[in-house]
């Protein structure tokens, strides 16, 4: 069975390592914060100018001066720091952020990513996505394996305008966990009950799969 968005976030959270500085994009990536493993200390960076993002505020404690990159009201934790947007993207550009998690419309087998524009439809803009993908040391994409029409979003080449080139390292979709390797998408794990054959049929880009691909496990 395909993973829920919550499960995708839960699986990505297992990639977090103690001491990581992490930037979580809008959508599924934001949910990752709910599943940070016990004993793993990570600091969340919000590119609008905050290190040490805390949970959403309690009702009545919203502060209009305190938002995340998705414009949501948030809180801080002990040890947080505010800074301007140049410093924020400075630390991103200099590779100080250990892991970036973001959504995608398409990913190519070489790790190209498209997630900001659909020509002919409304263009909202790239926000900080191009900066993040151009500089992040480690990018995990959270995405649906196929679009609503059932067409693969893991492609030989992106069709949509690119956000970045050759930058995605890992994909966690509703069907699978895959590494992006010089040889193509390497299948690492299957969603519970999803066959390698199904994943293969829904992956247009080159897929490398060993005979024995483990199923993902979720506790709780």
């Amino acid at each position, binding site marked *: 069975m395909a993973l829920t968005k919550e499960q995708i976030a839960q699986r990505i959270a297992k990639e977090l390592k103690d001491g990581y500085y992490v930037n979580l994009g809008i959508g599924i990536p934001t949910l990752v914060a709910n599943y940070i493993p016990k004993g793993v200390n990570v600091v969340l960076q*919000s*590119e*609008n*100018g*905050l290190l040490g993002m805390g*949970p*959403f*505020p*309690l*009702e009545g*404690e*919203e*502060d*209009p*001066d*305190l*938002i*995340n990159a*998705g*414009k*949501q*009201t*948030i809180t*801080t934790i002990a040890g947080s720091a*505010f*800074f*301007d*947007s*140049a410093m*924020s*993207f*400075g630390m*991103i*550009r200099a590779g100080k952020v250990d892991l970036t998690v973001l959504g995608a419309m398409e990913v190519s087998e070489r790790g*190209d990513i498209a997630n900001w524009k659909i020509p002919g439809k*409304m*263009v*909202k*803009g*790239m*926000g*900080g*996505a*191009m*900066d993040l993908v*151009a*500089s992040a040391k480690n990018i995990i994409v959270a995405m649906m394996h196929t679009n609503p029409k059932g067409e693969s979003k893991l492609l030989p080449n992106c069709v949509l*305008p*690119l*956000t*970045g*080139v*050759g930058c995605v390292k890992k994909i966690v979709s509703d069907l699978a966990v895959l590494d992006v390797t010089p040889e193509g998408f390497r299948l690492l794990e299957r969603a519970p009950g999803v066959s390698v054959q199904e994943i293969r049929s829904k992956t247009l880009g080159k897929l490398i799969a060993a005979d024995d691909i483990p199923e993902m496990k979720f506790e709780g």
Partner: protein
Amino acid sequence: MNKVVANADEAIRDINEGAVLMLGGFGLCGIPENCITALVKKGVKRLTCISNNAGVDDFGIGLMLQQKQVRKMISSYVGENAEFERQLLSGELEVELIPQGTLATRCMAAGYGMPAIFTPAGVGTEVAQGKETRNFNGKDYLLEYAFNADFALVKAWKGDPDGNLVYRETARNFNPLMAMAGKVTIAEVEELVPAGELNPDTIHTPGIFIHRIFQGKSYEKRIEQRTIRKRS
């Protein structure tokens, strides 16, 4: 050095048709509300606005869009705005979308007297079209030019008559960068304090960058995405 003006109307008195403006803020957070209200009242047209976002339909730069005062937006993200979309699709409004870090750094470059900077953001994408690409240590970078803005309109939490500014939380965002980058920089503050009251170690924008300052009024500080967690 007293840079205090009475109010927003006086502060923006010489912003005329065709001016290139920078407006601080991220979403609706830390935007120069009073200056925007005064610009709408003045009705000045054909403005170019450099701002990370374009407000929402009835707040922020959206108010200027409603009055068709904006000829061109230079932003990184312009969602959440139906009137914006209408003007863009009808060709009334020109839009230049640039990566958020590039936007921030082109402001900083202007404030620091650097004519251009190098950034990897947008390499290999349509953002790179027509731009110079240069390789340093095996990685490609785009050459991006410093902005050239007639006026920068910024919003701070506290300020003093010398123009020293302190921002609060994530309302800082682009404000200190644009404050440095305007040929004329106008600062509106929630609280104007006497000279010497701000701790000189904690000033975010030194007054040398500021030309006019005033105490704003009636801040709405609208929240764009009110998100809360349940009490447990």
